[in-house]
């Protein structure tokens, strides 16, 4: 009986979460731009979407920034975690505390402080402008802590002498890292990289403050479009994003379940 009540409740909450998304998707097929009048099925907003150069530019920026920032942050974060792990308790505490600052700090503060920093750096150097590079650097900087957070627990579980043992057996430092340490902490690295990628794709606030004229990711573009009023092209974009996300999640879960059943054998 209680379970039934909870099931009904859960259904209502799922409706609350999904109905807005489905409404967006349904109205992307509406001929008229209205939201309370159905003017017949149409793909005109998709056509408009595909003919919109700004949206493709933004999509490309989002994806390249996400891939590059995740990659760079993963490399920096992995080696940083490895180094931090060797520090004494006191300096370790300081470094981890500073690393975690952007995680706890309000995003808007991170955004405006990076913006001021980039403007100062550009003025000081006398070259460059706010744009793709500052956006990328900002994303790397907020991604690094999450990679470190994901890699650290794995490193802590590792035998402290593993690296030394590998070198005693004749491995070069690079070999010891690639062949011994890396495989042991790989799950943490993968988690960190995926987390960094998702955070980058979804970020708006930091991007908004650290980009320059003419460089927008999808979040910035949607924000500026939405502020100008309802625009059915955003609905079409939502549908495509939702479908992409569902397909990606399906592929990942298929791969995971295959892997875990292979592990079980």
């Amino acid at each position, binding site marked *: 009986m209680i379970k039934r009540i909870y099931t009904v409740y859960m259904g209502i909450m799922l409706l609350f979460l999904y109905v*807005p998304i489905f409404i967006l998707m349904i109205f992307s097929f509406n001929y008229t731009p209205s*939201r309370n009048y159905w003017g017949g099925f149409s793909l005109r907003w998709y056509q408009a979407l595909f003919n919109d150069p700004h949206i493709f530019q933004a999509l490309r920026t989002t994806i390249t920034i996400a891939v590059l920032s995740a990659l760079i942050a993963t490399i920096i974060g992995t080696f940083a975690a490895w180094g931090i792990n060797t520090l004494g308790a006191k300096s370790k505490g300081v*470094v981890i505390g500073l690393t975690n600052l952007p995680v706890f700090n309000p995003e808007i503060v991170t955004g405006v402080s990076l913006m001021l920093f980039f403007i100062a750096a550009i003025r000081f150097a006398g070259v460059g402008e706010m744009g793709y590079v500052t956006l990328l650097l900002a994303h790397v900087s907020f991604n690094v802590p999450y990679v470190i957070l994901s890699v650290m627990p794995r490193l802590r579980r590792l035998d402290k002498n593993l*690296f030394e043992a590998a070198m005693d057996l004749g491995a070069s430092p690079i070999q010891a890292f690639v062949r011994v340490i890396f495989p042991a902490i790989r799950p943490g690295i993968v988690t960190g990289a995926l987390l960094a990628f998702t955070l980058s794709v979804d970020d708006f606030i930091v991007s908004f403050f650290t980009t320059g004229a003419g460089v927008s990711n999808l979040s910035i573009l949607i924000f500026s479009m939405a502020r100008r009023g309802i625009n059915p092209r955003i609905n079409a974009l939502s549908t495509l994003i939702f479908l992409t996300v569902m397909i990606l999640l399906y592929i990942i879960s298929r791969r995971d379940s295959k892997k875990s059943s292979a592990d079980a054998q």
Partner: protein
Amino acid sequence: MRVALLKRIFVYPYGLWLFIFIVAPLLIIVWFSFGGTDFTLYHYARFFSPLYEGQPFFQRIYIAVLMRSIYLAVISTVICFVLGYPLAYALAKFYSHKSFLLFLFLVPLWMNFLLRTYAWLTILEQNGVLNAFLGVFGLPATDLLFTDMAVVIGMVYNFLPFMVLPIYTVLRDMDKSIVEAAQDLGANKVQVFLKIVFPLSVPGVISGVTMVFMPGVTTFVISNLLGGGQFILVGNLIEQQFLRVGDWYFGSAMAVILMVLILFMMGLIKLFDRQPKDGRTDKTAEGGALY
């Protein structure tokens, strides 16, 4: 020794990185908040100062905006807790396809944050879906868009999964034998929940409250799209100073005040949260794995 040195090599470049991208930007914003080269406390004073002689403290314009931000965030957090706790409880207790159900609650998080907020813009607007729906039943139309209510709805919608996830994790990992022991000793269902289950889930509740309240206080996107007027929340105030008014000094002072306030609150929350430290970092990593 050689090995220690080798590993240490990775710490110094990272230390430099930390300084450049985390410490320096914060120093710059603090520097601006004190007026830059002409040291002054004017920009802080401006935040706290009255418009006229004897204006009550909480009615002063910027204080009022800050209070409003906290107020709306508290309301959203309470609603998320009331809606989210039973959900997490049911997920952890009843169902056999736990991970799939949890997955269903997390999928919306992968949708772009702005799209999720935009969805409510289209629902709540005057000619929107909600009024069309009410019209079918002959009910009077509502005018929710550009009100505080719309901002609260937007926050609850966006942040609810952040409340459910940590509470669910704690409840799922709870030692069932403790509950059984309480039952054996004669506790009824209500007692078991109030004296055993809920106290043990407090760390999850604290994480959830933090993950809803903090972004709620500092948001400017939700209030910008769903709220009306100019001075909605402290986040909007800061954004305006930097991108429209161009007063970086005052904007920086407000950002520093907000940062201090939030870090202070985080510290307070940590006092209540007495979990072993290592356990928590592992939890963070697990939460990450869900992404």
